[in-house]
């Protein structure tokens, strides 16, 4: 199947994906990502890739269900991720792309999205034990809160674990504590709930990072919440 004819508008703050499907062409997306579509596009919800792939996605922080959109006639469909932020397109040609939990938005036919067990590395990153993994041949789209920046790793790069959105499988990674950050981050995680853990990527490949995470915003909003009264 030919590549999806698409464009990404309103980057980086309110990015949206627009796909123009040819007759018979399909696009797969996470539930509730669809914003608008032409009436000749048919929606079907289901477990794509069978039970095992669906379970993998669920462990990877995504929905069990994937929506399939099929064009009965050529038509346009738009997708918008939940958080205000950025959206990126990536072409798979047999290699694999790893995605952070919740980053997946949509893919074309020929691409499989499932969970990938990361073992102890995942545990230490504080981001869950399973990453999402996209493989096959075709288009994949991912999103995040904040803007997404592309880093071209030639030797090594260090990224705060909370800011990793996606990375190519040509890279190796290791979750560690930066020696110098240690004092600060220990105290920081103690008092302010920060993490201070970093992902050290090595090899050659691309890493996508987000410029903001949602947690500082949540901590900032917290004191504005009304205080519960204790009287019955």
């Amino acid at each position, binding site marked *: 199947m030919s590549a999806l004819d698409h464009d990404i508008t309103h980057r*980086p*703050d309110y990015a949206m994906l627009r796909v123009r499907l040819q007759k018979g062409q399909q696009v797969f997306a996470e539930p509730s990502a669809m914003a608008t579509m032409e009436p000749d596009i048919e929606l079907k919800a289901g477990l794509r890739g069978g039970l095992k792939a669906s379970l993998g996605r669920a462990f990877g922080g995504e929905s069990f269900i994937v929506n399939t959109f099929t064009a009965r006639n050529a038509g346009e469909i738009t997708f918008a991720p939940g958080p205000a*932020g*950025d959206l990126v397109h990536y072409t798979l040609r047999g290699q694999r792309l790893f995605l952070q939990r919740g980053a997946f938005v949509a893919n074309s036919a020929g691409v499989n999205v499932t969970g990938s067990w990361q073992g102890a590395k995942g545990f230490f990153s504080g981001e869950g034990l399973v990453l999402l993994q996209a493989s096959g041949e075709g288009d994949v789209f991912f999103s995040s809160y*904040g*803007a997404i*920046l592309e*880093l071209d790793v030639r*030797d*090594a*790069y*260090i*990224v*705060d674990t909370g*800011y990793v959105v996606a990375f190519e499988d040509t890279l190796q990674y290791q979750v560690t504590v*930066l*020696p*110098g*950050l*240690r*004092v*600060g*981050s220990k*105290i*920081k995680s103690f008092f*302010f709930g*920060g993490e201070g853990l970093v992902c*050290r990527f090595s090899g050659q490949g691309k*890493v996508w*990072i987000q*410029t*903001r*995470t949602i947690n*500082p*915003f949540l901590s*900032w*909003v*917290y*004191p*504005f*919440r*009304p*205080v*519960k*009264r204790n009287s019955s």
Partner: protein
Amino acid sequence: MQIEILARPAASAARLSLASGESVTCEVGAMIAMTPELEVETAARSRGGSGGLIAGMKRMFAGENFFLNHFTARAPGQTLLIGPGLLGDIVHHRLESGSLIVQGSSWLASGIGVDIDATFQGLGRALFSGEGVFWVKCTGRGDVLLSSFGAIYEVDVKGGYVVDSGHIVAFEDTLQFTLGKAGKSWIGSFLGGEGLVCKFQGEGKLYCQSHNPPSFGKLLGPKLRPR
């Protein structure tokens, strides 16, 4: 140090390119990503500056972290990406002489040669300006990066300028501000929702933020479940 500001204004991040031996001091937690030949050190004082414990305590009162992160390049061509926690803008100010007075949480990073300290702007101004009790005072020669809630705009004050409380990011110390009423009468000022405003006098650069964090917080708060 070369500075490039990306993804302005809502989700901005600063990309700093450091030559071998160059260093920069950042707010703790500002680091997003970096190349491996940067040495990180966490301390309570600014590089080469005085202070230590007391400076750290004062910074805490100014709404900043007790600790600072120092990044030093061990090899040429190192890159450091930093950003604030909340959505908002970043601007670069080049400090040549005098000082820059920065609102509590708006200081993000500064180059070597800039000394950072907390400063007290008077009790009246502390209580009614909508800003914190302490401000961060940057003195010396070098680069300063400021962050904000919303977009940042720059005003060249010549004579006088009025800023509503909660919208100040930073100002050069050639400017002085006093608190006053926005309108001619007190009743008019309060009914108009403006209340007290900051009146700047003098000549110098003033950075303002488009949005006021407490206003947004007060809008969200009542809609959330009690804690």
